[in-house]
């Protein structure tokens, strides 16, 4: 069976006056139907650009210089713009961090949703409106009939994000890419949205890539996790295996940085230093300067070690040293 999404050796680069920024520099991802993948990384790791690359939304001068993105077996890199536009919003949908930027402030919610429906189907207006109302109800917006005629500024942050999710769901896409959609929201509202997303993926077998910096969110939500650092995936695997028994020192460091219940008041493990500037990444393993296990070998690029369902890029993996 062809997987829903297969990304191989994806490289998205941005030429600038000072050199080429290798935002995404060799990323491999596969995703099956109904699967939730948590794509975790700190700012500048290239996780959002990976999402944009799948959607064909990389703006010039940035471009995909290498690699392939296959969606249900169909190659999307180099596909005609018209074909990508047909897929976007129909089979593949994206949800962004800030719904105030993605919703048009001068159009009513109804207009925006009907527009989305009619962009891909020859649906009569009345029917499209009905679909829009159902989508709003599905994401838990109270009294959807009245809210449909409201404008984005009349909605709270959490409600606006629900509208954005409802728009993404209009055509029951096969794949949703969610880029930090709950980062700006309060805990209780985030939880409401996670509950809805989880249910939708289980009910409709939609594949979901959840991009975030928050390991706690993906631990509760994702089936599989991929950790990105400096444009590359350094480790991926089933959520439990990766969180309980990390192999890459960066993954281990990230987990150690999160305050845990049983170590109150003790100093947190810390990763020394900061992420390298995108124009000035070290040769070989990009994590090398911050890594306690690094050696001369790390000056060459580590290949992937595979173990069943999981894999990592490291010459000196952490093994069996489960943090207490």
């Amino acid at each position, binding site marked *: 069976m062809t997987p829903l999404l297969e990304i191989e050796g994806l490289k998205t680069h941005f030429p600038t006056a000072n050199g080429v920024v290798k935002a995404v520099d060799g990323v491999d991802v596969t995703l099956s139907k109904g699967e939730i993948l948590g794509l975790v990384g700190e700012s500048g790791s290239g996780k959002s650009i990976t999402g944009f690359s799948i959607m064909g939304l990389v703006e010039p001068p940035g471009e995909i210089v290498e690699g392939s993105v296959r969606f249900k077996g169909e190659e999307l890199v180099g596909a005609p713009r018209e074909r990508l536009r047909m897929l976007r919003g129909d089979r593949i949908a994206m949800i962004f961090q800030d719904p105030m930027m993605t919703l048009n402030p001068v159009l009513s919610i109804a207009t925006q949703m009907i527009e989305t429906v009619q962009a891909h189907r020859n649906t009569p207006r009345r029917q499209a409106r009905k679909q829009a109302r159902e989508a709003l109800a599905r994401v838990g917006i109270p009294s959807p009939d009245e809210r449909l005629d409201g404008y984005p500024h009349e909605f709270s942050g959490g409600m606006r994000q629900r509208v954005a999710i409802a728009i993404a769901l209009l055509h029951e896409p096969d794949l949703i890419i969610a880029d930090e959609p709950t980062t700006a929201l*309060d805990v*209780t509202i985030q939880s409401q949205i996670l509950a809805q997303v989880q249910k939708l993926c289980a009910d409709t077998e939609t594949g979901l890539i959840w991009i975030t910096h928050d390991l*706690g969110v993906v*631990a*509760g939500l994702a089936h599989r996790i991929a950790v990105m650092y400096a444009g590359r995936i350094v480790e991926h695997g089933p*959520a439990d295996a990766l969180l309980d028994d990390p192999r890459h020192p960066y993954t281990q460091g990230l987990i150690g940085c999160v*305050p845990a*219940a049983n170590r109150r008041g003790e100093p*947190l493990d*810390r990763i020394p230093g900061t992420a390298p500037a995108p124009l000035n990444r070290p040769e070989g393993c990009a994590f090398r300067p911050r890594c306690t296990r690094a050696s001369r070998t790390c000056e060459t690029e580590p290949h992937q070690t595979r173990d069943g369902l999981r894999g990592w890029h490291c010459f000196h993996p952490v093994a069996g040293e489960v943090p207490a």
Partner: protein
Amino acid sequence: MTVSLIHAKDVSKRFTRTSDLAERAAIWLGAMKPPGTVHALDRVTLTIEKGEVVGLAGESGCGKSTLGRVIAGLLPPSDGTVEWQGEDVAKLSRAEARRMRLATQIIFQDPMSSLNPRLRVQNIIGEAPLFHGLIKRAQARRYVAELLERVGLDPDHATRYPHQFSGGQRQRIGIARALAVNPELLICDESIAALDVSIQAQILNLFMGLRRELDLTLLFISHDLSVIRHISDRVVVMYLGRVVETAATDLLFDAPAHPYTRALLDEVPTIDRRARRFAPIEGEIPSPIAPPTGCHFHPRCRYAEPLCAKAVPDLRPVAAGRLSACHLAEDILSASATKHGERSCASAR
């Protein structure tokens, strides 16, 4: 009895927007309603002892930042009093008030907007102690270098500008600036929220180290409960302008005595809880312009009874060292204690 460092008593803070001429005309003609009053704080009482780390938790709009600013003396309270070492801040002489404000320093969320982009780091940090006569001009260079070293920055970078530093380093500059005037109380208002996880851990460690070395008192304001749990001795939870619960950190996290605290704890994502079912509380935080009657949380509370919509619950002692503003606090407390027991059994299995 020892005197508390800070004792805020029944503090309320209301914000009203002033209308311009056109709006006043519209209101007079009945075309517009007069602007509402935002009740940011509603009779909040908070005590901070010397040397204590108090965590102030709550969601956006609950008034936690306003409370921080009132305690720092940046905003006058609309009602109630704030006492600094037993003396009413509103009645202090000018010189004493200035001393009190120096001893209380705030570290803000966004270090880029709180550092002057046109000043060199040595001036950002050295300006206040020079102005207040804490150091002489000749000593300034060495003083700044010591502070930079204390917060983990290279003293040679003192001649740089803020934009030449990363986010985490800028936050360290903000901390050095606050420490420069020898404060007793540091108010950290979401000081690490904008930073990456690995940098957050570095700054949290810095705060914990500073507290030990300099015997600082911290009021740590954050929406992130796992951070609050890690650093605080005592936790205060706010909801829509009121304190709903306060207790020692372990007691509060083991068995919350207020339905809101309990809901918050259930919803916080942690890496120990896998493939979970999210079962959130319904509804959103109501508007502070028209808060609900009675207990502010009752429209979202699954335990609410008719009484909750009528009477405002007092913040009252419910067990040793614990205060809760809930009519049903005793029931909630015993229910959470049982639930906690079950949870530890489940994790032991």
